[in-house]
């Protein structure tokens, strides 16, 4: 078990030391969300209505943005094979890489999201629910995304392929996430369904990652 957590710490520490992906996430979010008022118009009421959906769509794109970095370097340097030879089971990568991906992509999003929502015209007292929905739902995007990255490891044009593969799988998370974020739909079930998708992908995606990685490590 101790070696498991060492791998987890290694994966996350490597990212934070580099820092670059986190800066990329923040830059993408700030730029992309300031484009919406220009595209839709400065109408505060309209923007506030669309804001949860906008933030969730940005979350999806943000998740796709980091996928190619998840395994590429370690596969090229042979670190993945070394770890596998040291007895780290492939399914554990499903967790460690998802955690690393979440820290790269969604931690900056969740920290920035209150500011983004307020820029987009959401009132202060309505900010909590969208942020909570991101907190509950984005881990699912990381689990699904890191599985997609493992599946397309070593593929030609892997960015294109992984986007095509992962995109339909992320739609349920988007649906439940946005519904949980928008109180006007008035359904308490949305947040629990959002959590259910996260838990389900936490179970299925590491297994699928295990199968996918085992084929590429053979």
């Amino acid at each position, binding site marked *: 078990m101790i070696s498991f957590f060492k791998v987890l710490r290694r994966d996350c520490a490597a990212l934070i030391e580099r820092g670059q992906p986190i800066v990329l996430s923040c830059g993408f979010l700030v730029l992309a969300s300031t484009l919406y008022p220009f595209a839709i118009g400065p109408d505060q009421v309209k923007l506030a209505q669309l804001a949860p959906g906008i933030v969730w769509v940005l979350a999806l794109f943000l998740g796709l943005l980091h996928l190619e970095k998840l395994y590429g370097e370690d596969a090229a340097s042979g670190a993945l094979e070394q770890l596998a030879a040291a007895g780290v089971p492939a399914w554990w990568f499903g967790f460690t890489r998802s955690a690393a991906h979440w820290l790269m992509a969604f931690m900056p999003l969740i920290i920035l999201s209150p500011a983004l929502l307020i820029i987009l015209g959401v009132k202060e007292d309505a900010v909590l629910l969208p942020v909570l929905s991101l907190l509950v739902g984005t881990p699912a995007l990381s689990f699904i995304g890191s599985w997609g990255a493992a599946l397309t490891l070593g593929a*030609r*044009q892997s960015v294109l*392929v992984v986007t*095509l*593969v992962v995109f339909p799988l992320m739609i*349920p998370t988007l649906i439940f996430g946005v519904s949980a974020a928008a109180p006007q739909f008035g359904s308490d079930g949305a947040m629990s*369904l959002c959590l259910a998708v996260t838990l389900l992908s936490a179970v299925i995606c590491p297994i699928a990652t295990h*199968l996918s990685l085992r084929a590429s490590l053979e």
Partner: protein
Amino acid sequence: MSAFMHWFANPARFVRIADAVTPWLWLTLAISLCAGLYLAFFGSPPDYQQGDSVRIMYIHVPSAILTTGIYGFMAAASAASLVWRYPLGSVAAKSAAPVGAAFCFITLATGALWGRPMWGTWWEWDGRMTSVLVQFFLYLGYLAIWQAFSDQRRAANAAGILALVGVINLVIIRFSVEWWNTLHQPASLLRRGGPSIDVSMQWPLATMFIAASAYAGAIILTNMKSELRMRRAQAQLQSMTQNAGGYRLETG
């Protein structure tokens, strides 16, 4: 069951059976397509509400059934390939995918053509339509995976996993989209459990469904045969180049 599968796993035996079955499938297609088209155009009345547009249904409904049916077949074949290392599994799944994708596209296209005069819109974010659209993207992703790897065994493995995860996703999609749709616009345009279909329309529909299934079966079997030949040719090429010594040919 497993004895049956092992018996079928011999590629040479499979090719023999497929060779015997395929002409009958083409014959079935020819007869049922002629009969079905005649019944659809001349042998059935226009709908009292929809007029002649109802005839689009005779292509739309068989395609929609086959879209799902072929995905199920692909998933079963992928499971057989991944779990029991059934050698024909990945061949069958790969051969079926383009056919399923084509039927999925036909379903969407004919649905849009029917929707324009009937609902006054090409596209409606209706629950069923949206899940068919997502299924189309799944098919595209599956096809892309096969193209993305030069190592065909690796591609077979990745595609198989994707097909199985896709089944889980399709179930969730169907549920979530229904839920999302009823949340946004309760008044759906599709009548659920509407008036059952008249006998005069059941016949052309059934005949066209037989035609579409025979077509799918014939194409999938032919695809499988050519895929098997391709693999054998590649294996032979590889052994030849290895015997020639050091000289390697780019395959895939």
